[in-house]
């Protein structure tokens, strides 16, 4: 698996040292908060509602067992024994103390990790398909590309003060699990006339003004990636609006100028940027690619699994729900659910982190992934090892068989932690999950993506939830807006607002009505909620939410 170079190591250590000095100067009063704030944000340190929060980068969501174990150590030693995995494939610690941050950053650097560029108007952690390098439907692993982009963008002198933050996502599979159409730049690995490259999308994003990314290039040869990205970002750097924070994202720049103009300007800039790149980046990429090669997989006899399932229906259910098809039929991709019913989506205790690290080491070729859906993935597990993995996960409260089901909810921290929140998100997720378990409807409902954000910034991706829930503050009371029909895949769509919002206590019953309306109206068990919504339109669902009378009014 990829390990950072000496250069990265030196850079990260230097940043740790600098930040230690900055914290000291803040504590002795020689730096004001105004001066210190941008410095701490550059190192992923936020101040939230109840405490500081440290956002640790997990580059393209990939980590090793020792790194996961280090998270556990840090959570125990300097935090409250747990961490929160986010939709950006990062880890957030919710209770660190300012004076401890330099020690935490050192401890992270010991395992080649850091919190750089997890904040600020920079190019953020590049996210990828969490099944990268493993999935049967993948034609190329997107992680070498993501790593190349990471190296290019880290501390890039021109891109430290962009008009706004900038997010890039890459996928190499036919199913888009990385929500690339909701990113500033989305890259889809492609091939043309036998030549490898990318399809490039630009201007997607959620938040205040949600937009689906548009195609700027139908095919970009692989070798042109960095100069082309540089051209897109440089164009944005010049054209992007710095006068209004809400209009500063590239999606607005693309929208205001039109994709054709944006493309023309980018292509012009590309002629210049291409001359700057000597091709060294492609040598680096070739080297990175070898390091991401699939580990040599062991032999595995799937019949042992069949036998175990025959006597353990719980195992069977979990295998059916939480494993996905691997490139090699001797192996499977395991989704470790961080969505036990009634628990906080995306949270793991330090003990659970250690269990996951141990399993990765013992059965998973030392690899783990953080998914944007706030679960942990073991990308390569021999089928014959699945029973042992399931047993170990069960003991740790990590074997909930709900991947892709109603209770597999994305929820941002919301007003339980986040200073920007307008309402809570976590307890809404907890209650929906408990209710659907009580009703025992999950299996019947099948694929369902509920996504909840605690404010318009949409970290919980509510716009692309089949059912999206947005928490707002309406005249000093929590109020929840429901959107329907969103989709984060290759058929991406922004959910449509169903009508007036619901009070905190009314949200779960409202969702329940939606689920039941779907079950009543679907034409078969194969028709998912989203398909039914697309076939039937919003009306039957609005009726379920608001009753017949209000439908015309809404």
């Amino acid at each position, binding site marked *: 698996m990829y390990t950072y170079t000496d250069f990265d190591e030196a850079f990260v250590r230097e940043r740790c040292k600098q930040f230690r000095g900055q914290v000291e100067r803040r504590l002795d009063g020689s730096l004001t908060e105004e001066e210190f704030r941008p410095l701490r944000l550059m190192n992923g340190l936020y101040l939230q509602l109840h405490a500081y929060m440290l956002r640790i980068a997990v580059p393209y969501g990939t980590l090793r067992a020792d790194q996961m174990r280090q998270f556990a150590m840090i959570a125990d030693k300097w935090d409250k024994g747990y961490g929160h995995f986010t939709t950006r494939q990062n880890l957030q610690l919710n209770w660190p103390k300012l*004076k401890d941050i330099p020690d935490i950053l050192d401890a992270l650097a010991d395992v080649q990790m850091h919190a750089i560029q997890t904040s600020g108007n920079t190019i953020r952690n590049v996210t990828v398909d969490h099944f990268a390098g493993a999935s049967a439907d993948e034609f190329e692993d997107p992680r070498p590309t993501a790593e190349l982009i990471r190296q290019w963008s880290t501390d890039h002198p021109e891109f430290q003060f962009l008009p706004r933050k900038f997010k890039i996502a890459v996928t190499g599979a036919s199913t888009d699990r990385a929500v690339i159409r909701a990113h500033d730049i989305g890259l889809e690995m492609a091939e043309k006339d036998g030549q490898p490259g990318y399809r490039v999308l630009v201007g997607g994003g959620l938040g205040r003004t949600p937009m689906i990314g548009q195609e700027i290039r139908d095919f970009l040869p692989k070798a042109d990636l960095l100069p082309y990205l540089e051209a897109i970002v440089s164009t944005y750097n010049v054209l992007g609006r710095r006068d209004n924070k809400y209009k500063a994202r590239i999606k607005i720049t693309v929208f205001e100028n039109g994709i054709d103009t944006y493309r023309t300007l980018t292509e012009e800039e590309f002629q210049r940027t291409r001359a700057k790149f000597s091709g060294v980046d492609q040598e680096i990429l070739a080297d990175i690619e070898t390091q991401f090669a699939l580990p040599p997989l062991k032999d595995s006899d799937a019949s042992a699994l069949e036998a175990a399932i025959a006597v353990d229906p719980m195992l069977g259910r979990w295998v059916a729900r939480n494993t996905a098809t691997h490139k090699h039929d001797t192996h499977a991709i395991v989704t470790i659910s961080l969505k036990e019913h009634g628990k906080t989506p995306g949270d793991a205790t330090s003990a659970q982190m250690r269990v996951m690290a141990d399993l990765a080491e013992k059965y998973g070729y030392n690899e783990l992934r953080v998914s944007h859906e706030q679960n942990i993935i073991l990308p390569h597990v021999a089928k014959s090892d699945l029973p042992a993995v399931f047993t170990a996960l069960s003991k740790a409260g990590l074997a909930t068989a709900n991947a892709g089901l109603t209770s597999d909810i994305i929820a941002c921290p919301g007003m339980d932690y986040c200073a920007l929140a307008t309402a*809570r998100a976590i307890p809404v997720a907890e209650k929906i999950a408990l209710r659907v378990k009580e009703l025992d409807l999950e299996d019947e409902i099948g694929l369902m993506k509920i996504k909840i954000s605690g404010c318009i910034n949409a970290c919980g991706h509510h716009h692309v939830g089949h059912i999206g829930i947005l928490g707002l503050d309406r005249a000093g009371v*929590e109020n929840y807006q429901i959107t329907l029909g969103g989709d984060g895949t290759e058929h991406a769509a922004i959910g449509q607002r169903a009508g007036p919002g619901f009070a905190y206590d009314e949200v779960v019953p409202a969702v329940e009505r939606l689920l039941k309306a779907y079950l009543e109206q679907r034409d078969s068990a194969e028709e998912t909620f989203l398909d039914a919504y697309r076939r039937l339109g919003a009306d039957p669902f609005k009726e379920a939410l608001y009753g017949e009378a209000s439908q015309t009014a809404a």
Partner: protein
Amino acid sequence: MARKFTPKVLTANDLLEGDVIYMTADGTWVRAHEQAELIEDETIAEMRMLTAQGQQDRIVGPYLADATMGPNGPEPTHFREVFRTKGPSNYFMGKQADSANAE
């Protein structure tokens, strides 16, 4: 006519701990909302803000939050401020746990 001033407390986060703090009438910082000074006059509010801004070496992000007088002292009126007096709702952590320990 001048707008009527809604009573406020002055609140911030502690620089070292990061937790929520409130200013008392004598300009010191406390952890309990009820012990805060309920500021009912705009001029005093402005003065308190100036004092707080001069204490940058101890606090972060001071602001005035609406409050009202209750039986044990000032109480928050907005739900965000209510959450700040307690801590997160998904775990028994933060102020709710700290005050339980103190008792």
